[in-house]
């Protein structure tokens, strides 16, 4: 029943619908393009771009005196783009490393943005309110026209991404090879970064500059755990982004005083944690189970091998030995008794007396096989 209520709200409640749609759009776009950032080890570039967008927003407003989302987004995009070029320029032409360049550009651009905002605040003509939503995001204030802007710009971005799918894959995987094939890798690089910049500035109004980097990195990092294909990763990442967007919108609407942006970020963080733990093949739980199984198998083999070694000192390979001897041989490590029970149930060892164990004929064959494999 609750789900039904929720569904009804999502469709009928204007604010919730708008916020959920906007957050979902942002999740899809940043999730999809975030994959490239993560795969190219540019995860923190998103953080720098989003912080650096602030002076762009302020300048766009100063020049146009307009608060139309498209205008502000353009300003943000240009600033984010210039910041990226600065980072690349500094890294390529000085001895400053990437992390320092990112931190430097991020904080200095943001400071400039701050200065501009306070200047705007004091201008008699302008009501600054509306600009500072870019700082922390204000999903609740999303209007339908904002969502339309986001969806159309985001859709365009995704179209371009799909259009140059093959080329972008080449850029991310083996750029030198791509260049030898004649593709202009530098141009593709700039294009891909431009798309990332657009994806980021689209989300600023909803989740704000500080949290935007999570929307770029987290869905991709989560998606990577579930799949080994780029296509799968991009689709899954977009899906996770959308889920987190809608989930965050719904959760924050259902309780008092829970801001939307942080809720979205916590939702996607939860997805990351879940993925790291439970994703098949790569997940930690999966790995733990696998290593336990391996260990158990190894313990059994050790005991079998010990029995075989002992027996091979006798004429009869099925000569029996006591538990105490086997315990001594494995230096009491591992659960010898448990392994013996397992071996009996496999039919490789039989319990001769209460505490005496011997290889079966099948056990001899197995033990020989294992011994040979070890050589």
């Amino acid at each position, binding site marked *: 029943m609750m789900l039904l209520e929720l569904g009804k709200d999502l469709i009928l409640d204007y604010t919730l619908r708008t916020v959920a749609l906007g957050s979902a759009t942002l999740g899809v776009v940043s999730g999809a393009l975030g994959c490239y950032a993560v795969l190219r080890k*540019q*995860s923190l570039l998103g953080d720098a771009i989003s912080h650096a967008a602030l002076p762009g927003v302020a300048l766009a407003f100063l020049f146009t005196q307009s608060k139309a989302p498209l205008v502000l987004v353009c300003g943000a995009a240009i600033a984010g783009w210039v910041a990226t070029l600065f980072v690349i320029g500094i890294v390529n032409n000085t*001895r400053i490393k990437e992390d320092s360049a990112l931190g430097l550009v991020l904080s200095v651009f943001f*400071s400039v943005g701050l*200065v501009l905002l306070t200047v705007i605040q004091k201008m008699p003509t302008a009501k600054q309110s509306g600009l500072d939503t870019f700082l*922390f995001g204000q999903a609740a204030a999303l209007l339908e026209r904002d969502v339309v802007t986001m969806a159309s710009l985001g859709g365009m971005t995704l179209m371009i991404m799909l259009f140059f799918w093959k080329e972008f894959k080449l850029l991310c995987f083996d750029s030198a090879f791509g260049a030898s094939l004649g593709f202009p890798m530098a141009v593709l690089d700039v294009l891909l970064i431009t798309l990332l910049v657009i994806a980021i500035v689209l989300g600023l109004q909803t989740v704000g500059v500080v949290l935007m980097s999570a929307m770029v990195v987290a869905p991709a990092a989560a998606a990577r755990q579930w799949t080994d294909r780029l296509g799968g990763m991009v689709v899954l990442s977009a899906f996770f982004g959308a889920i987190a967007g809608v989930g965050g919108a719904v959760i924050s609407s259902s309780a008092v005083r829970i801001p939307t942006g942080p*809720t979205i970020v916590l939702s996607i963080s939860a997805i*990351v944690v879940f993925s790291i733990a439970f994703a098949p093949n790569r997940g930690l739980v999966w790995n733990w189970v696998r290593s336990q199984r391996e260990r158990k198998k190894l313990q059994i083999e050790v005991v079998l091998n010990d029995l075989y070694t002992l027996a091979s000192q006798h004429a009869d390979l099925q000569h029996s030995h006591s538990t105490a001897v086997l315990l001594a041989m494995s230096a009491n490590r591992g659960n010898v008794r448990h392994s013996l029970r397992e071996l009996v149930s496999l039919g490789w060892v039989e319990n001769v007396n209460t505490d005496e164990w011997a290889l079966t004929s099948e056990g001899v064959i197995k033990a020989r096989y294992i011994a040979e494999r070890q050589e």
Partner: protein
Amino acid sequence: MSSETLEIQLIAAVVAVACALPGVFLVLRRMAMMSDAISHAILVGIAAAAIFVTEDLTSPLLIVAAAATGVLTVSLVELLNQTRLIREDAAIGITFPALFSVGVILIARYAGDVHLDTDAVLLGELAFAPFNRFEVLEYDLGPRALWVMGVILCVNVVFIAFFYKELKLVTFDANLAATLGFSPALVHYGMMTLVSITAVGAFDAVGSILVVALMIAPPVTAYLLTNRLSRMIGLSGLIGVASAVAGYWFAHHQDASIAGSMGLMTGVFFALALLFAPNRGIVAIARRRASQRWEFAQTMLTIHLFSHEGLPEAEREAHVNHLSSHLHWEPDFAQQVVRNAERRGFIRNRSGRLNLTEQGREMAQLALVK
């Protein structure tokens, strides 16, 4: 200058130096972005302590809580990284927004109960700092922020002075440090604790983003100016103070945010160093390139002549006209290079046919051995 103005500048200067000290090591250890992560993530610590423990925003408990959050951030990043499922940069990019979000939500939920808002943490407001006085037995000992940051600065100075050798070793060769018995992990976490304490101490004066600016920009600027660690530390402090004071006066005249102006000034100083640093500045490099271009061309010419000397194709290869087509030189440039080389006695020009002199041969050989 009123005492208030002076106090603001003093606080700003102390904050700048306190930030620059650990910043130097962050920059050198390629962990600059950790300052970004920590300065954001400590919001949780500040919020939690302010809501559940003490309402006094300058209580030392707050600093302890925030420092613990900082270390927690570092450990979480490390933990994610160690699963080998997520790379370090991505781990940072996921961890701190999550913690920051928890902080924002805490503050939003309990907004009525504490005097703390996210704007203040992120942006700070230095202008109000002098109003919060530190009083003992009704004696006014100055602004509280100055005392807090002063103590933090001292802690930083003592830590770095005390562990200078270890820090240096771990920074430049962590493996060697480990084999010599200094635990890089211990130094690492010690350093991160310092960063956290400094960030939390500075946040209500200048805001967390400016903490990043003050931790990274002055050291990076100093990095362009010197090769010596001790000098880099000193210069970073100086640049930090200069940015603080310049930023204050800029803000004063433009009626803008002080924190933002200080950040802007760190950027201005960086830009100046980037352009005009004596060895690594863009201007110096361009000038060096220009002179090297001629030098390089001369060497190239002698080597070209040298490697074809005495071989059948020499007649063709050693002609002036050949240079522009084969070495991709503009004809004018080629002429100029030939004239220079002739003047310096490296070659003889017999109506276009170039021959190496003994001196030129020597130069080519020298260049090839290098």
